[in-house]
């Protein structure tokens, strides 16, 4: 009897110890996140003011700012979203609703699964060969936007498919029963009902794209840009201009990489400040995605 009691006590103790160990390991991740945020804020918060946000990069660390990088990131994201969102949603709809189960579909599916695991720097090499040289786009905002669109396309496709999969079969049957065609069913029912899930995927994809550095370095983007691209709006008709697409550019992560690579510690403070801005953008986009997913889970019950 004694020995059984002792064994039971030992087993319970093992469980408790592992519980503590598990909490510690989980906290290691959380603690790293805090240490990372803390060290960035400590080194960089002092540099963030209006002039940092509204100045061009400079040879003097104290006068340098991230204006061209902020504008560049915004414009590149515009191109990325304009390409990846319609293309990704359409591909997702095709694979989930239209595709027959045949060899071609299987190849497309394996291909998407594999694309999601291709290192981002390889996308940069592809863009260097295709967009920069074969198409002659140069290292422009257009090239960068297309590169990042290719990079996040699998994310948008997978999110679209998963969102469509949660819609029960009966919704589709009901629509067909009322005489709707397949496309009408997709457009009026399936897409609106899956918008929450798709939006989550798009936000996550764009937040990944905005932090990407390697593929943009590879296409030969410059880090020192002391001008802004042409404005997309003009005062004369037709009031919109696409000249900015061909402009040279820099983006936030490239600017940060450039500054962190310099030996002068004064530039490290600039890098940290850029990191604070960058992380504020990506984390708030992720928070938004979590919020959208949470709202969606609560509001839709089939």
């Amino acid at each position, binding site marked *: 009897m004694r020995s059984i009691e002792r064994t039971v006590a030992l087993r319970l103790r093992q*469980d408790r110890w*592992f519980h503590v160990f*598990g909490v510690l390991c989980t906290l290691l991740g959380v603690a790293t996140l805090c240490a990372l945020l803390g060290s960035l804020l400590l080194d960089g918060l002092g540099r963030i003011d209006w002039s940092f946000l509204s100045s061009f990069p400079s040879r003097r660390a104290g006068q340098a700012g991230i204006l061209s990088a902020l504008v560049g990131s915004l414009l590149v994201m515009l191109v990325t979203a304009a390409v990846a969102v319609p293309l990704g949603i359409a*591909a997702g709809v095709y694979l989930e609703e239209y595709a027959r189960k045949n060899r071609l579909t299987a190849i497309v599916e394996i291909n998407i*699964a594999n694309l999601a695991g291709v290192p981002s720097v*390889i996308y940069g090499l592809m863009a260097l*060969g295709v967009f920069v040289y074969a198409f002659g786009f140069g290292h422009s905002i257009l090239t960068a936007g297309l590169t990042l669109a290719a990079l996040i396309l699998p994310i948008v496709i997978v999110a679209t498919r998963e969102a469509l999969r949660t819609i029960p079969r009966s919704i589709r049957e009901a629509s067909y029963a009322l005489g709707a065609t397949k496309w009408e069913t997709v457009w009026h029912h399936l897409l609106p009902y899956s918008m929450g899930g798709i939006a989550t995927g798009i936000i996550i994809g764009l937040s990944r794209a905005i*932090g990407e550095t390697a593929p943009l370095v590879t296409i030969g983007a410059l880090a020192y840009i002391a001008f802004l691209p042409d404005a997309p709006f003009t005062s004369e008709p037709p009031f919109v201009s696409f000249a900015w697409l061909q402009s040279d550019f820099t983006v936030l992560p490239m600017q940060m990489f450039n500054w*962190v690579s310099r030996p002068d510690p004064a530039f490290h403070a600039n890098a940290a400040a850029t990191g604070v801005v960058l992380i504020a953008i990506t984390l708030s986009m992720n928070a938004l995605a979590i919020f959208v997913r949470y709202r969606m889970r609560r509001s839709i019950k089939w």
Partner: protein
Amino acid sequence: MHSDRAAAVLLWIAAMSSVLITVGIVAVLVLESIPFFSHVGLGTFLTDTQWQPLFADARFGILPLVCGTLVTTVTALAVAMPVGTVVAIYLSEFAPHRLREILKPVLELLSAVPTVVYGYFALLTVTPVLQKVFPDLPTFNMLGAGIVMGIMIVPYVSSLSEDAMRGVPRLLREGAYAMGANKILTALKVVYPAALSGIGSSYVLGISRAVGETMIVAIAAGMQPNLTCNPAEPAATITAFIVQVSQGDLPHGSIGYQSIFAAGVVLFAMTLVFNIAGYRLRKRFREAY
């Protein structure tokens, strides 16, 4: 009815665009590296122990870059695999439901942080701390970069492993409890083996991430090709080399320009092997129960 047909065709074209991307990647890697391999020769490429493609006295052995990639990958996995597995076991078998729903998204934020920020963290925060423990550690080293990369990979491992473990039927656990096992024994001896193919695929995904990770190693591990297995030394990885060479303005068609595509072929091949292995494992664990 016409518009219905047109919509179907447009959607099909969109779906095929993803195939075009892969075709583009493979075509560029092959076409741009053919001139390189006709100049260098596969034997030299795979066996020479030095990689100095931009020097006047150029050497083209990929081994130092592959070695740097493997050392940083192993260092990262030495962190990510044990920590990720323990976190997965904790979240799947021990943590209360409410806590898990909070911890999972918080951990996933780790993989949302831009890698250039991790690079900064590795170079300017983690390495100085490591230097307090190992005073001889150089400013650029694979150890700091690998550890930070490992922590970045933890959520990839823990999320997928946890999903796999939660897919194990309750009955198996009840059986173990009925035999007198405690939670941790059940987790290690019953749930873990039952979910092994899913957990394995999470490890493989982690390896593939580590091999392809670029900015952390480019910033913190150094840019000099160095044939060494010691993580405390600086060394360039394949990815870091590509980034380093791209930063300078290389003329299109020069041997330096071609060398980044040759390095890219090796990188793509390495990750492709892991991606396919991971895909196979994932399919198997989906079919398991």
